[in-house]
């Protein structure tokens, strides 16, 4: 791709040009890099690099050229491009596996949680000491290296003389810089000397490591732990893992790769894959056990594999395939072990389709499933198993012919499955998976209903609940200091800016805001009440779930919850009655009306009655507010229940309330809910009268008078103004017949017959 010869020429040309502009560059250098002593270091470092390159590279000429060009350059700008582009072309020749590997490790080592950007800015001023220091490589050092490369790039671009090859090499650097700061380790240096990033790092002057060229064959790179992550404090952050959760299981690729290149004769394939993660249980999974047999059902491949297996993974897969072509192979043992730490249950053994299959049903960690669900799965499994037994022989012969099977190892499959399983963990199954739980419960009930004699279906729901860990983060405080340390991470972000709220002095805005504030307050109250309400309503379900000894505690909690609900309706602490204003306030919001409708059944009789009274008294106001929402009708059902349980006196009171203020009744009649309520009251009164002759309804004249006024109003109001009720109780006619003459009765009947359908 990049012809090295041309590159060289370019370099030398530029070099000559550079000498003229040396002053500018040097000044720039001095400002940024400090004293000229740095240059010497550069030279030294680069000389060493050149030696290294010589040893690594097959062609000594190239490295010699690079060294010569490098040593004569004054600025640090040129050698990196030259060497890196040489390296770049070198990389191109190979499969790029090394680069990928090293980059993967770099990404692994980075920690996005901690803002190292802060260090970068502070670092600029401290660059000179950083460079010359031989401290242990940390994020800072690498950051400085990235900065340097960036500056080099800027200079080059500024000069505008960058050749294509250089731009290409810069693009690599850009990519590298795109990755967040790296905590470079010695291991990285050892592993590969070829990546361009590595060359940059070397020039920066990291502590010298002996080039591990004379590596022993037995050296196990996969065992090496990646550099310790610089991580946020454990409190409030997820537990720091040696390897981030999202990384695939490691493959021991590098060793095979390098050997391939350097010693083409010896192909060393690692057939064993040691465990990277700390095993959750003592047994070790041997590589044999890791293989699965059942795969690859290809009978033909459309195109012959023209690509020779260069990647070690394919080699490994092939070897393993070859090894296990005979016989069914050992059963997979403990393949589900990875799930143990999550569910804390001993994962039962998994068995494959093989001769000893029938006695061990596949029961993967299904403890988190509903028992009904599990039963269904088992049934399916068995039916499938019986079918597969027949087809298994035919398949077994075909699968051996596929040389590319098992590219994805069992470990990797487990890893993917594990990630997917992680999502199923739940601290509160009812909250997380409400529909799933309900569906299976209903199914159980249905089955119980249908087949009453089968006793086995009455099972209790066992859901493993992952303990809810409380992550309370309290910022670290030193005694006697002012303020707190600002150590922020992903999970406990700290305020960066203290924003002060300034109130506007505009009067109208103030009023508007007041209104909004009031509304917000109401909504807040409603929300709180709702959460209490939901708790109370879920009580029954929870009650059935909890074991015996915990039931008392739950009962207590339930009582307190209900009590709190009652109290929230009261406005003042000493006033035992339900506060009207509070109710009204709540009802002014749509949500509040819904809340009340759900709440009424739970309240005690006197309280519920009081609420209904309040509603009746303020019906016009409520109706007006409801014009927008039209949800008062939700209240009909619970109110009906309340009315039916009311005593006669309270019923009379209610009717009175409905007509208490001037002109209230006509307005009530105009509202659908109002009409319904009125009819309900009247119907209830009638029912009382007709069922129980000596009821107290007729004791004082109030009831009669009130009914009279209602009839008067009904007759007076034009039909168009009368709203149609939700339903018309049938006994109203008999009620009116007691009080009015026939003529009026007929008119009233007409009015009563106004329903939704007739309009």
């Amino acid at each position, binding site marked *: 791709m990049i012809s090295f010869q041309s590159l060289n020429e370019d370099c030398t040309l530029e070099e000559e040009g550079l000498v003229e502009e040396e002053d500018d560059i040097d000044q720039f250098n001095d400002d940024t890099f400090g004293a000229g002593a740095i240059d010497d270091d550069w030279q030294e470092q680069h000389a060493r690099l050149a030696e290294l390159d010589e040893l690594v590279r097959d062609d000594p000429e190239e490295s010699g050229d690079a060294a010569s060009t490098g040593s004569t350059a004054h600025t640090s700008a040129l050698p990196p491009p030259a060497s890196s582009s040489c390296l770049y072309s070198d990389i191109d020749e190979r499969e790029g596996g090394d680069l990928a590997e090293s980059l993967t490790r770099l990404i692994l080592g980075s920690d996005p949680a901690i803002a190292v950007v802060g260090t970068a800015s502070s670092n600029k001023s401290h660059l000179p000491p950083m460079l010359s220091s031989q401290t242990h490589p940390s994020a800072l050092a690498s950051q400085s290296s990235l900065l340097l490369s960036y500056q080099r790039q800027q200079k080059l671009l500024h000069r505008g003389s960058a050749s294509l090859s250089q731009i290409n090499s810069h693009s690599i650097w850009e990519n590298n810089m795109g990755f967040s700061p790296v905590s470079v380790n010695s291991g990285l240096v050892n592993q590969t000397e070829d990546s361009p990033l590595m060359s940059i790092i070397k020039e920066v002057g990291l502590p010298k490591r002996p080039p591990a060229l004379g590596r022993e064959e037995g050296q196990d790179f996969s065992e090496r732990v990646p550099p310790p992550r610089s991580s946020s404090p454990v409190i409030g952050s997820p537990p720091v893992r040696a390897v981030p959760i999202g990384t695939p299981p490691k493959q021991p690729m590098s060793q095979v790769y390098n050997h391939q290149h350097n010693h083409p004769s010896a192909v060393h394939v690692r057939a064993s894959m040691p465990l990277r993660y700390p095993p959750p249980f003592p047994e070790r999974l041997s590589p044999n056990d890791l293989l699965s047999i059942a795969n690859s059902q*290809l009978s033909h491949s459309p195109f012959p594999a023209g690509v020779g297996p260069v990647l070690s993974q394919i080699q490994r897969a092939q070897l393993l395939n070859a090894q296990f072509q005979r016989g069914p192979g050992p059963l997979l043992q403990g393949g589900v072990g990875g799930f143990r730490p999550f569910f804390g249950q001993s994962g039962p053994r998994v068995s494959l389709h093989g001769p000893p299959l029938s006695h061990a049903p*596949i029961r*993967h960690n299904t403890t988190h*499933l509903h028992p009904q669900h599990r039963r269904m*799965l088992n049934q399916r499994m068995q039916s499938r198993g019986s079918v597969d037994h027949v087809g298994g022989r035919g398949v077994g012969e075909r699968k051996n012919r596929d040389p590319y099977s098992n590219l994805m190892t069992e470990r990797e499959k487990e890893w993917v499955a594990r990630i997917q*399983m992680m999502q199923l963990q739940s601290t509160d199954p009812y909250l997380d998976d409400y529909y799933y739980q309900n569906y299976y419960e209903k199914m159980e009930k249905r089955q119980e209903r249908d087949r009453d004699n089968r006793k086995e279906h009455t099972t209790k729901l066992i859901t493993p609940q992952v303990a809810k860990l409380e992550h309370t983060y309290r910022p670290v405080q030193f005694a006697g200091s002012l303020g707190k340390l600002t150590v922020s991470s992903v999970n406990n972000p700290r305020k960066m800016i203290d924003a002060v709220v300034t109130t506007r002095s505009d009067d109208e805005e103030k009023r508007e805001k007041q209104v909004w504030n009031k509304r917000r307050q109401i909504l807040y109250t409603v929300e709180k009440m709702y959460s209490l309400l939901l708790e109370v309503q879920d009580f029954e379900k929870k009650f059935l779930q909890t074991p015996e000894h915990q039931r008392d505690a739950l009962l207590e909690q339930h009582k307190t919850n209900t009590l709190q609900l009652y109290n929230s309706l009261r406005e003042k602490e000493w006033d035992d009655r339900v506060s009207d204003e509070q109710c009204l306030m709540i009802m002014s919001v749509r949500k509040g009306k819904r809340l009340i409708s759900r709440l009424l059944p739970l309240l005690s009789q006197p309280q519920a009655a009081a609420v209904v009274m309040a509603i009746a008294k303020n019906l016009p106001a409520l109706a007006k507010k409801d014009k927008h929402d039209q949800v008062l009708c939700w209240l009909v059902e619970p109110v009906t229940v309340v009315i039916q349980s009311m005593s006669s006196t309270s019923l009379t009171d209610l009717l009175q309330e409905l007509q208490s203020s001037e002109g209230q009744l006509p307005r009530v009649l105009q509202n659908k809910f109002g009409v319904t309520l009125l009819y309900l009251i009247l119907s209830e009164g009638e029912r009382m009268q007709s069922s129980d002759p000596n009821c107290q309804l007729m004791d004082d004249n109030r009831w009669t008078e009130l009914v009279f006024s209602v009839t008067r109003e009904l007759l007076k109001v034009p039909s168009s103004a009368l709203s149609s009720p939700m339903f018309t109780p049938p006994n109203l006619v008999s009620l009116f017949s007691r009080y009015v003459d026939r003529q009026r009765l007929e008119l009233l009947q007409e009015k009563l017959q106004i329903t939704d359908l007739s309009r």
Partner: protein
Amino acid sequence: MNYMPGTASLIEDIDKKHLVLLRDGRTLIGILRSIDQFANLVLHQTVERIHVGKQFGDIPRGIFVVRGENVVLLGEVDLDKERDQILQRVSIEEILEEQRTEQQAKQESKRLKLQAVKERGLSIPKADTLDDF
């Protein structure tokens, strides 16, 4: 081995021949070699199959790595049923030619429709190139 009972997972589909439909309308057929948690797929010995009418043509593509979000659906190919296929297989050039003709016909009909609609004084808003919404 059932890794995830009661769920749909691609783990059991590995090393089996699959037909993958992509969001841009392409149909890929290949052996599913590797997956990850985003349902990114690695297809081996992939063939892009172009269907026009009752004919189809295959273009060999090699190894595909498909980003999970671009997959509409995928399903395992039943090799027995594949043998008894009704559709007629033709050469690549032929099928590309057929596809071109089909595209032209579609364009033509669309143009005519637009013209007819314009004549009547209506207008159809042009759909954006973004077919996500």
